[in-house]
């Protein structure tokens, strides 16, 4: 029974990670941008959603608010800061880390240092009865479904639409796409906005079962990083597979070897480094 619960825990965590990691990985794939501020986006998105929830008592509005607020934030960050570090990997990493420091500190001032729980929506409260007599928190189960829907949607967009084809071509070779007359800046803006929206949204989604707290920005970021390392930067499939692996390994690790759970997460990463330094689906950077 426990195995089933833990597996579901892993999958639901994976769903959350996917929401955050997919945006991060596609942003890198298309624009070669490493935006570690994604961690802060998660945090701030959660806090913003929380505030909207307090005001409107509506979870769905909170989700939307969390997402949109980060779209705006990312726009300014990208336009005035991140853009200036094009091609400078370490610079970009340090710059976005600096952004995280600032955002996290401001959040600390506004919302304080205590973990805050985002109230789950009515339909997601309580537990759900699954086959084989498994009883599982409804919210986390719905999160899995949500993750699957978003994942499938993204995948379809990416693989089956013309827009997706353009993005894929851009990931492959930006200059060519630009030369083909496609407005690469519009494309980038769209992708950035989408990634930011997901990041903020994931903050709200995560906040409803993990709480929102100072430090969450790093905790989730590191897991998301392992996801993209394992899955391969720039690959949507990689983010899916990676999220699942990391989510499951994290869940099993916490359950079976609580004192070493972090070490357990490192396991798949280390094995991968030995054989595929660019991740399962990644390509030479």
């Amino acid at each position: 029974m426990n195995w089933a619960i833990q597996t579901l825990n892993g999958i639901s965590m994976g769903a959350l990670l996917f929401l955050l990691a997919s945006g991060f990985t596609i942003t890198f794939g298309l624009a070669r941008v490493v935006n570690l501020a994604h961690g802060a986006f998660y945090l701030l998105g959660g806090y913003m959603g929380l505030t909207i929830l307090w005001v409107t008592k509506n979870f769905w509005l909170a989700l939307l608010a969390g997402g949109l607020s980060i779209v705006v934030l990312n726009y300014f960050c990208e336009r005035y800061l991140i853009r200036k570090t094009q091609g400078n990997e370490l610079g970009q990493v340090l710059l976005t880390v600096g952004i995280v420091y600032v955002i996290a500190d401001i959040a600390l001032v506004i919302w304080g240092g205590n973990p805050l729980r985002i109230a789950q929506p009515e339909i997601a409260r309580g537990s759900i009865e699954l086959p084989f007599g498994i009883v599982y928190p409804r919210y986390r189960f719905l999160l899995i479904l949500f993750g699957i829907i978003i994942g499938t949607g993204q995948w379809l967009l990416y693989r089956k639409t013309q827009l997706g084809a353009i993005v894929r071509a851009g990931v492959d070779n930006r200059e060519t796409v630009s030369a083909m007359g496609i407005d690469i800046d519009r494309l980038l803006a769209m992708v950035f906005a989408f990634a930011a929206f997901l990041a903020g949204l994931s903050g709200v989604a995560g906040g409803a079962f993990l709480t929102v707290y100072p430090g969450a920005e790093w905790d989730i970021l590191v897991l998301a990083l392992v996801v993209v390392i394992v899955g391969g930067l720039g690959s949507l499939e990689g983010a899916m597979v990676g999220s699942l692996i990391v989510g499951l390994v994290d869940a099993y690790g916490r359950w079976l070897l609580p004192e070493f759970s972090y070490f357990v997460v490192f396991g798949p990463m280390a094995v991968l480094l030995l054989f595929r330094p660019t991740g399962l689906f990644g390509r030479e950077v």
Partner: protein
Amino acid sequence: MQTRKFAFFLALAIFGLIAPHILDTFWVSLIMQILVFGLLALAVDLLIGHVGIFPLGHAAFFAVAAYTTAILEARHAQPTLVAAFAGVASALILALFFGLAVRTKGVYFILVTMAMGHIVWGVATRWSSFTGGDNGVGNIPLPKVGSLAVSGYRDYYYVVLIVVVIFTLAYRVIVRSPFGTTLRGIRESESRMRSLGYHVAAHKYAAFVLSGGLAGVAGVLYIYLNRFVSPPTAAFHLSAEVSLMAIVGGSGTILGPFLGSVVILIIRNYVSAHLMQWATVMGVVFILTVLYAPKGLMGLIGRHSSPGLSPAVNRSPQKNESNRSQG
């Protein structure tokens, strides 16, 4: 040029020697921290400034050494030499494993080292039966080697000063040796190095291990200074700030990481005493450094990673005849 430099170092040396007698404990303690973290930043800069790869997880080696020494001293009453040696050894061993990371390139390397560093933090936090979890490890006695016992801050200050100077000089030799020059070649063009006969991966790995070991030395110095270690010592914050120290001060130079250490520690220790939002200040420093001072303070005063056999001296074309010697 030479006399100005000599005068500078002489003044620095004199200041260094008399500091504990003219400043109060707060400042002496700050200087010790600057030296210790400066050494850590130097270790990181071996990779950033000379190999051209950017680790964001060196707090792991620092913390592992600190924890090892702490546990041996506090819980197993091991003599200082044993505990200190074991501390450095533990960092080296960890670096032997984490060195796997050099198989990755560019952004992957940054992310992988970041994740590795976080793993160590996680172990420090979760393996509470061994590491004490959030309570950390304390009650570290002052160091004692044979009959020489450190009896207070002032004594330890000189220990730190001597150790840091020795290792910095050793670092200087390494960085100017054929091995060090090889690293800079790798930084410039790995492909070219391979075609010239270099086993690039082996050199990168060796540099990584050396860097981890040096970080361990800093960790051992730290534990006798702080007399306490806990998970924040392994946190990503420290790794990021240490990398920033190297950049802010001037990557690729010897003095740079120490200058950077001064800047960052003043923000952490001094600014924080007067301003709640010191983390915002830190973040802004990160951002401003990247955007406006990528060569760091050393770059601003005109000394940066430069040609010639000594990496730390700027020689403009006209002056190269008179400036033949060291930096």
